[in-house]
């Protein structure tokens, strides 16, 4: 169980989430649905405020933007030795890995099959990954805004303008927040420079390289955009990436900053605040529940180790500065928001501890998630619940006042199918029966656009680089395309007068939500979980 101090941290964290929910929500709403005149650079770029796009145009703009930025990233990585800001003279990145990196940062997954400090030059870090760290959450949030408009508007063909949404999100939301947060990180001790790595002779006489570079700025957007791709190999366990307890706490808060804000914005726009508050409470309750459970499991320590004092719990692969609770809390918070940053080694957690993270990725596709895609997934899941339970009212299903037909329900179900297909299909195709849990975790993390890894597999091989990239693409665009099609289809509909917006609320909704998550998750994932992580867990405890 938790100590008093740990409990206090958890309570403080929840209280801050509670405060931020409304503040961030109102701010995002203010940015995305403005009535102000267009700023100067719109006029320079000849973007007109009133030039709205249909869902096909909006999707087309997203795809064009993604392809251009993805290809750009790929080329920067392929030719990094010819580019400036490379004091360590790091070589060009081979194609399979460069492809994997480009896709992983394009899809907000930030899967890392490489060591950041030993593979990427400063220029690649900033211009390839850093820029994508801004673009990928912004694109996700644009899709969420389009879906939201499709739901609250009536008889409309248009869903807003992608380019306007994109610039607004980056200029008004991500950039200012990132600047503030990086200044905070610099104050706490994170370096921000372009100097070469330092060679230090340790007390024992060995030589050690100390990483330098623009860490603070990378760290800020890694957290805010729920990207999770660290500057160094060990991610937030590195003393430069996560220097103090303060930054550790702030990073966990940063995951939730925009994720919660977008939820509030969504609820405010579709005028279902009661439903959205229920979602909020369910999420917070699950977070607290999981943190407590995961910490208790990890504190039991390793039953195999004979003659070693395990009173401090399972400390393998954990930073002593954060301890068991700090690591578990960080892991749960990061997997909840599909961020994927870690401050401990996931593969060193006990099987039960690892399972929490895996369940958050696999089952949690339906409930939480990263910037942009998270709220889309929640909206889709709410739609599926309405379509199933809505029959019990004796009417054909309705969602936020609009009648649902086969077309819409099909579109809402499609992203889940792609997600399941990407995980189970690629795990099956990998064809390993040993290390199954690690393979399952890898593909779940990729398809869920999470990016943490719990594995000792040879990830930097062609097979894993290409298939994981495919899983990421399926997870991201398999959601994005149906979401925009759904937004277009619902936007054309009229609201049924007198119909309630959402047929469920309060305790009933939260219970139904959790049971629906469990039923769907069990049907799809139980067999694979049984053969992988659950088997690990039973055998692990069985021997103790």
């Amino acid at each position, binding site marked *: 169980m938790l100590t008093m101090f740990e409990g206090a941290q958890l309570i403080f964290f929840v209280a801050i989430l509670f405060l931020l929910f409304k503040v961030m929500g109102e701010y995002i709403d203010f940015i995305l649905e403005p009535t102000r005149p267009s700023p100067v650079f719109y006029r320079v770029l000849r973007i007109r405020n009133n030039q709205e796009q249909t869902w096909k145009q909006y999707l087309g703009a997203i795809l064009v933007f993604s392809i251009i930025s993805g290809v750009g990233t790929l080329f920067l990585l392929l030719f990094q030795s010819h580019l400036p800001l490379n004091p360590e003279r790091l070589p060009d990145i081979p194609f399979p890995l460069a492809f994997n990196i480009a896709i992983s940062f394009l899809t907000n997954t930030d899967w890392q099959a490489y060591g950041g400090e030993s593979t990427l030059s400063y220029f690649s870090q900033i211009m390839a990954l850093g820029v994508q760290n801004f673009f990928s959450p912004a694109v996700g949030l644009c899709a969420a805004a389009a879906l939201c408009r499709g739901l609250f508007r009536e008889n409309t063909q248009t869903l807003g303008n992608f380019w306007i949404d994109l610039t607004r999100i980056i200029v008004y939301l991500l950039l200012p927040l990132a600047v503030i947060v990086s200044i905070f990180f610099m104050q706490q001790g994170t370096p921000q420079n372009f100097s070469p790595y330092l060679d230090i002779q340790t007390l024992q006489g060995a030589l050690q390289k100390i990483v330098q570079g623009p860490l603070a700025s990378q760290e800020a957007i890694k957290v805010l955009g729920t990207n999770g791709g660290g500057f160094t190999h060990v991610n937030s366990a590195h003393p430069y990436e996560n220097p103090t307890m303060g930054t550790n706490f702030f990073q966990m808060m940063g995951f939730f900053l925009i994720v919660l804000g977008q939820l509030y914005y969504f609820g405010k726009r579709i005028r279902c605040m009661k439903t959205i508050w229920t979602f909020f409470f369910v999420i917070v309750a699950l977070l607290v529940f999981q943190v407590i459970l995961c910490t208790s499991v990890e504190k039991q320590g390793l039953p195999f180790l004979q003659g070693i004092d395990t009173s401090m719990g399972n400390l393998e692969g954990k930073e002593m500065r954060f301890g068991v609770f700090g690591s578990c809390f960080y892991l749960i918070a990061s997997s909840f928001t599909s961020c994927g940053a870690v401050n401990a080694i996931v593969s060193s957690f006990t099987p039960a501890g690892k399972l929490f993270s895996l369940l958050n990725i696999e089952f949690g596709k339906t409930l939480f998630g990263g910037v942009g895609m998270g709220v889309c997934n929640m909206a889709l899941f709410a739609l*599926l619940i309405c*379509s*199933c*339970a*809505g*029959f*019990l*009212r*004796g*009417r*054909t299903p309705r969602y936020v006042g609009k*009648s649902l037909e*086969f077309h819409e*329900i*099909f579109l809402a*179900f499609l992203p889940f*199918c792609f997600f*399941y*297909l990407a995980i*189970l*299909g690629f*795990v*099956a*195709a990998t*064809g*390993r*029966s040993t290390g*199954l849990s690690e393979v399952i975790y890898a593909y779940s993390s990729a398809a869920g656009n999470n990016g943490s890894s719990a594995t000792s597999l040879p990830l930097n091989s062609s097979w894993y680089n290409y298939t994981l990239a495919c899983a990421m693409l399926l997870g991201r665009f398999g959601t994005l395309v149906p979401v925009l099609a759904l937004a277009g289809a619902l936007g054309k509909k009229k609201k*049924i*007068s*007198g*119909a309630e917006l959402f*047929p*469920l609320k309060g305790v*009933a*909704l939260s*219970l*139904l939500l959790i*049971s629906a998550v*469990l*039923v*769907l998750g*069990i*049907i*799809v994932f*139980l*067999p*694979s979980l*049984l*053969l992988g992580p*659950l*088997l690990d867990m*039973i*055998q692990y405890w*069985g021997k103790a």
Partner: protein
Amino acid sequence: MRFIPSARGIAFLLGGVILSLSFYSSLPFFWLMALFFALLPLPLIRFSSAESSIEVANTDRLIIDKASIIAKSEVQEIIPAVPVSREELAKAAYLAASLHHDQESRVILQYVEKAFPSLVERIKKESLTAQSVREGVRIAGHLYQKGSRSYMERLVADTMPHDLESADTMIARQGSTPILIAKDERIIGVIAIRQYVDAAAISLCNHLRNIEVKTVVIGCDSKLALSSIAKQVGCDEYVAEISRESKEDLIENHENKGFVVKGDKELKSIAQRIGEGRKELRQEGALSIFLLTSVAARSILLFPSLLIPFYPAMKKLDVLHLSTPLIALSSAILYNLLLTFFLVPLIGRLEARRVFTSMAANAFLWLTSGLMITVIGIKTISMLLRGF
């Protein structure tokens, strides 16, 4: 073909899950096929053609023409204005109604023929040429008109005589319909028509309220008269004092908004169709929730017991102790058959009765029963199988 969207999607997904499972598990393929039949929600593959009743099921408001719910109406009394005689009023009413075929006119004609036979004979002998006007008749240089008070006040220049005003209100308050009679722009009297609401309509409106359909009665009568009729028959709302043209508009308007408007005998059939459609949709919802939960429960029960021969540690997760994998699998297949042929009709019948009124309570009922019945069913069948 109808579709239980998410539930049937699950059936397809399940196929994919088991197929992918076959690649990385040590289970023989034959077992995996058997597993598929043990888990697949068979009743979801059902065809039905009742599209129309489902469209009707979404109706939330029904507009009823007043005329269609009146079983019988008769003239209660006629009250002439001060200088006018009863016979003169009767003659004017007879002439005003003579060229119209609505219920009101018929009642007036019948009454005058019965109460003033000599008057009617005299009128028939005159055999004048008459010209039909909107709510009356132009005959031999005179204009005879009839209608409700608001209608008359718009048509006739003359204000209402004082004595008739109180009579009009009194009649309406008694629940009858006052009809004003005018001769040449002058109101000469009022006829009270007593209307008896159809007993069948009362029970229909009750039924409609039970299945959450609002009823709106519309008619050209005054507010007081129509509200008393609405109260008698049990309608939720009423729209009074509408003219013939505005009635058409109203009906068309509501039809555009998705409300169904029918009169006469169709009221009964439509109420029945709404009830049927709603029942069917509720059964669909109950079934899909029950089946989905049941599939999840079955996979929790089945998979560990199937994997025991390969991984003995799985015994810990074999909650029900289903002895051998063969017994576990065959009891699940038997349960699936039992579910398809016996439990599904039972669920349908239960949901038709509507166990709880609230939707959430019903959802939980089917969630928990899907779990409990599956657990109990599979355990019982496996015990029976072990007995053989």
